[in-house]
């Protein structure tokens, strides 16, 4: 039964990597700036999912903390970029 689990983890990893590739395509050819920020948002979430799956596959507790950090800092980066698109500056006086 462990073989099935390994196969499923590999399938999920392949799906996440493919999603990341599609997000990179949208990041490079997005028509508007908001498209590019959305693609970057999708990319960090996909990377976080890859880290979580690796943590399950190799049975290591380290990956989870990295995934949590990516979750928080990716949100901060996306909000900063969206605020920049909205107002033209990030921190207003």
């Amino acid at each position, binding site marked *: 039964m462990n073989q099935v*689990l390994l196969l499923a983890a590999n399938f999920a990893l392949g799906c996440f990597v493919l999603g990341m590739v599609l997000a990179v395509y949208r990041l490079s050819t997005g028509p508007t700036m908001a498209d590019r920020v959305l693609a970057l948002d999708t990319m960090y979430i996909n990377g976080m999912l890859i880290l979580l799956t690796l943590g399950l596959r190799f049975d290591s507790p380290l990956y989870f903390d990295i995934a949590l950090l990516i979750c928080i800092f990716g949100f901060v980066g996306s909000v900063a970029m969206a605020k920049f698109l909205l107002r033209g500056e990030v921190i207003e006086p």
Partner: protein
Amino acid sequence: MMPDLPVWAAGVIALLLVIAGFFALTGSLGLLRLPDFYSRIHAPTLGNTLASFCLVVSILVAASFVEHRFVAHSLLVSFFLIITSPVTAMLLMRAAIKRQLRHELGEKDNAQTKG
């Protein structure tokens, strides 16, 4: 390497992993295929939130079986994502609407000054 799990737990974890991969791929495919930004923003936010929830539940099941007790720390990721994903989507949508309005106003001004 992975520890030995009972058959039904391994089946549940494998099913959740496959569902998570499928939904993440669907979200990213929607980001690629949909026609304009306002329809494009739906796909990745919804798909990725659901995919991360399925993955987090599978990690919860696996960790609970390994440690022989209920381990819920992996729900933190899903919690943060459920809070932060709508905020990002809302800010991006407002930014896109405002930029489009500004663009249209600029075009109208240009047309008026020319005509």
